[in-house]
């Protein structure tokens, strides 16, 4: 029998909403009442979170993990209200912010604090503004860029999901087909970036996310802009190859050595060959562009390559073809 139906209902409502439940506070205030039911609800909450992000116990399945406010954290930058810090690193800080003009939450990337030659800041701003012109379903959408309070920043769509790095930790290595599909998506995103004359410069499993609906999203084009080493398009090709190597082996390739087949002898030959070509120590022997890389991967999985179109169109043609063929045959 439920002793406190309101408590159980309230907790259930929070879980169904995807909001974090304050289990400790509930345990303190309502100890003994409905412990059994609450214990089961806690398990269901973890299940809900696992299906959303692959990470049980993460604080709030419906939002990005935001650390509590730090004293030195800015409150406002340009027209954005800063809600909390998501992470900080050598290329700058990432905040969750509220865009008062667009009236929605955004992820804000701010250049590291410090003194920079004026030319650097101007160049970074110009490149960031350039990014706002690129639209691709597999590239994080950048809404705007500006300089304010002495810092350059850009704000983009807040992607809810997990990085491929986290997916590797949670689920283990990827199979060749799954990896090839991810590679396809990343190639398309990189092709869109290269078409604008920009190099990404930081393609890693930490920088590629899988959002709530399963979409692959390449993040953080700004890594190189905010103080990284100069990179070439061929470095991006290598980066995609290294990403695929990492996904199927959970290790990083060592330059100059090809031992993918030794680590994963079960991989199909053509998949291994494609990855090895992208990782060739000689940039001239790699794929000449993301488009060529994409076409090779597409051939592997039977998908239709984008070939420079803006809108990916029917990305699931393999699945549709197979299923449609089965339906017409009428057999199992």
């Amino acid at each position, binding site marked *: 029998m439920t002793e406190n139906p309101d408590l159980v209902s309230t907790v259930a409502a929070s879980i169904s909403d995807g909001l974090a439940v304050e289990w400790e506070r509930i345990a303190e205030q309502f100890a003994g009442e409905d412990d059994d039911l609450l214990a089961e609800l806690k398990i269901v909450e973890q299940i809900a979170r696992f299906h959303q992000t692959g990470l049980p116990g993460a604080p709030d399945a419906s939002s990005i993990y935001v650390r509590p406010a730090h004293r030195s954290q800015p409150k406002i930058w340009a027209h954005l209200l800063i809600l909390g810090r998501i992470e900080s690193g050598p290329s700058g800080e990432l905040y969750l912010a509220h865009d008062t003009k667009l009236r*929605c939450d955004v992820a804000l990337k701010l250049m590291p604090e410090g003194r920079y030659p004026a030319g650097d800041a101007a160049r970074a701003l110009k490149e960031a503004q350039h990014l706002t012109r690129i639209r691709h379903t597999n590239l994080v959408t950048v809404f705007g860029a500006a300089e304010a309070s002495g810092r350059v920043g850009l704000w983009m769509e807040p992607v809810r999901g997990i990085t491929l790095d986290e997916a590797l930790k949670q689920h283990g*290595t990827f*199979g060749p087909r*799954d990896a090839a599909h991810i590679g396809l998506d990343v190639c398309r995103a990189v092709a869109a970036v290269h078409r604008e004359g920009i190099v990404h410069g930081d393609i890693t499993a930490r920088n590629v996310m899988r959002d709530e609906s399963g979409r692959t999203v390449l993040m953080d084009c700004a890594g190189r802009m905010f103080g990284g080493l100069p990179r070439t398009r061929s470095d991006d090709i290598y980066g995609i190859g290294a990403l695929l190597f990492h996904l199927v082996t959970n290790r990083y390739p060592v330059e100059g050595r090809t031992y993918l087949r030794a680590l994963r002898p079960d991989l199909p030959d053509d998949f291994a060959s494609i990855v090895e070509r992208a990782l060739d120590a000689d940039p001239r022997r790699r794929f000449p562009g993301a488009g060529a890389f994409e076409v090779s991967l597409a051939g592997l999985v039977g998908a239709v390559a984008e070939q420079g179109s803006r809108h990916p169109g029917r990305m699931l043609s393999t699945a549709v073809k197979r299923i449609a063929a089965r339906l017409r045959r009428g057999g*199992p």
Partner: protein
Amino acid sequence: MMTAATLTLGPGTFMADHVSSPTATPGAPQANAANALTSVELLARARAGDDDALNDLCARYLPRLQRWAHGRLPPWARGALDTHDIVQDTLAQVVQRLGSFEPRHDGAFQAYLHQSLLNRVRDQIRWAQRRPTDALATDRPDEGPSPFEAAIGSEAVARYEAALLRLKAADREAIIARIELGLPYPDVARALGKPTVAAAHVAVSRALVKLAKEMALDRKP
């Protein structure tokens, strides 16, 4: 049958109306015409040979189901098949079989799809346990748990799944739509045949309480 006007749409849908700054060009919302059709409608069209409807059905479910299946399969059980193959195969079978079984609404279709995929995943695990080991294989069948069971606990998972099956169909569909598939509320409302997002929210919350009560029955003291 509810109309789109009564559903509460998320903030992202209205972004295009708020462009004010020249540097701020919001991304286009993902909505497209196919979102207006229920999965049951898409299914009927797909079975009649409409490849566009089939494509939209795949786009709606494959990514979510792939992520779901990836968490439910232990790495050692994946073998040469990827979750891609398993999920596509299952969807194909379900689309084929659903002539005789008429889903009343999307929730029933989703529940059927979910159970079919769960069965398929279990088949895959049993197959992997029985196959002869290959001396060169790097993924040996240590028979460890799936990522899902590792995260939640095998005993809790078993209790959860048993309880889910004992619920009434409508409650089970609510749990599958929101908790398992993680659909946003407008989609949940459509799946459950609820006229508003608020009604869908109430349905899910109530189903959660019933689920917890069923699970508590099996809990070992």
